[in-house]
């Protein structure tokens, strides 16, 4: 996914340094006129695909305990390729932004986003529904095999941290909606405050999960991934969700950085709204997890 900054940089290159604001025209027209090489002739998609394959092979070898050095090397190769891609993609952002974009004029549009952000978000949400749908199907398929749930010997989980996490997610969802509402009214300062507040709240969630709850469960031997079906499903589901929360925090950090560069306006807030939509989805998944793993785990059938 290319951002407006990168697109603008390419236009800068093609126009040999003549800095002009990108007109509000159709994205595909811009791409065709200014950077035909934009979507083609890039080695990175191929390299990333190969690196993902290598990482998967490496992970398999690692899990199976076969040839540790080779496994680690394969997995590190993925990191190297990813790092190279991120570097090549972002190295000009700062100069491009500072030289050309600056702050968006009131009522102005920063520039065409190369793809339909709404469609992108809808596709992401669709893939996430498939992922979590599969995970919940697994949970129910295992659960119906037992006469009672949680199975005999499984602990009753303490809800305190889970309740705090739920409160955090509700607060962050309300705050980000408020922030975007303020942006639509043209109040940049309140928008930034709201976004930073949301990011802080969002970052508390993985801190509580990976810094407190998981260590408490694992190291105090209350529940581990090897504790049987309940432990395995618990850590798998909360782990997948936690990874998505971390991704959401990263997306918020990026959104915040763009907010402080003045790249959003009452007419240009698509990326911020896309981030919030993703976050809301993560939130709704958490509600299901909370109901099934904590509340539902108290039910002895």
């Amino acid at each position, binding site marked *: 996914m290319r951002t407006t900054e990168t697109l603008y940089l390419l236009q800068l290159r093609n126009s040999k340094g003549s800095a002009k604001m990108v007109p509000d025209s159709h994205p595909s027209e811009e791409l065709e006129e200014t950077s035909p090489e934009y979507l083609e002739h890039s080695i990175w998609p191929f390299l990333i695909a190969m690196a993902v394959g290598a990482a998967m092979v490496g992970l398999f070898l690692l899990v199976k305990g076969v040839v540790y050095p080779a496994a680690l090397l394969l997995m590190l190769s993925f990191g190297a390729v990813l790092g190279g891609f991120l570097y090549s993609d972002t190295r000009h952002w700062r100069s491009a932004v500072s030289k050309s974009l600056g702050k968006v004029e009131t009522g102005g549009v920063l520039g065409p986003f190369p793809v339909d952000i*709404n469609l992108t*978000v*809808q596709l992401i949400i669709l893939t996430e529904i498939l992922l979590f749908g599969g995970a919940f199907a697994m949970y129910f398929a295992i659960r119906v095999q037992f006469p009672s749930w949680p199975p005999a010997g499984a602990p009753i989980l303490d*809800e305190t941290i889970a*309740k705090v996490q*739920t*409160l955090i*997610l*509700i607060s962050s*969802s*309300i705050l*980000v*909606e*408020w922030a*975007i*509402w303020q942006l639509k009214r043209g109040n940049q300062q309140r928008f930034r405050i709201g976004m930073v507040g949301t990011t802080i709240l969002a970052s508390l969630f993985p801190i509580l999960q990976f810094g407190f709850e998981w260590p408490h469960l694992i190291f105090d031997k209350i529940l581990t991934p090897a504790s049987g079906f309940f432990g395995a499903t618990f850590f798998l589901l909360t782990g997948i969700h936690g990874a998505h929360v971390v991704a959401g925090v990263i997306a918020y950090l990026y959104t915040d950085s763009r907010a402080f560069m003045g790249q959003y306006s009452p007419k240009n807030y698509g990326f911020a*709204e896309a981030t*919030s*939509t993703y976050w*809301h*989805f993560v*939130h*709704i998944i958490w*509600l*299901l997890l*909370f*109901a*099934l793993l*904590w*509340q*539902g785990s108290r*039910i002895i*059938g």
Partner: protein
Amino acid sequence: MAREQNHRLKLEDFGPFVIFTALYAAGTLGLPEIHLFAYQVKVGEIPSAFVAMFGYPAVFGLTLGQFIANLGVEASPVAMLSPVVSFIGLVVIYRLRKASVLAGCVAYIILTSAWLTYLLPITEGVSTTAAASSAFLGQTIAVLIGYGGYVIASRIRASLGATAEGQQTTQ
């Protein structure tokens, strides 16, 4: 943050939808239970009146929230039909919003209480009389608290709108 009263849902409605889902589900599961005879007063029922302000995102959100909340409690399969009844009641509140939100809330209370009167003897084993009285009382308390909040929010919203109009006139 109130949305346009438009039936067509958009991506920006996803936020209010999830927030209302969370308010119902977390309000019911996360907060301490308030028992009134056989019936639990659901804190999640309180935002029902706000359907008149936020429209269908709130209707769908509260319905899904009730479904999620029911997943987390021990209840018979017939209890999983409760969200359907609530959905109908919430649509009634929304449809009556221009005539009277209070009338919509009363209709919602009657509809959901009638359902609970049927449901509670099955799930809790209480008598029909006890079920009817506790359900009606519990729903009335929860929904009317929410209605009070709705009235306050409407007035704040109206005053904010008047302030904004005043500022535009001055400029």
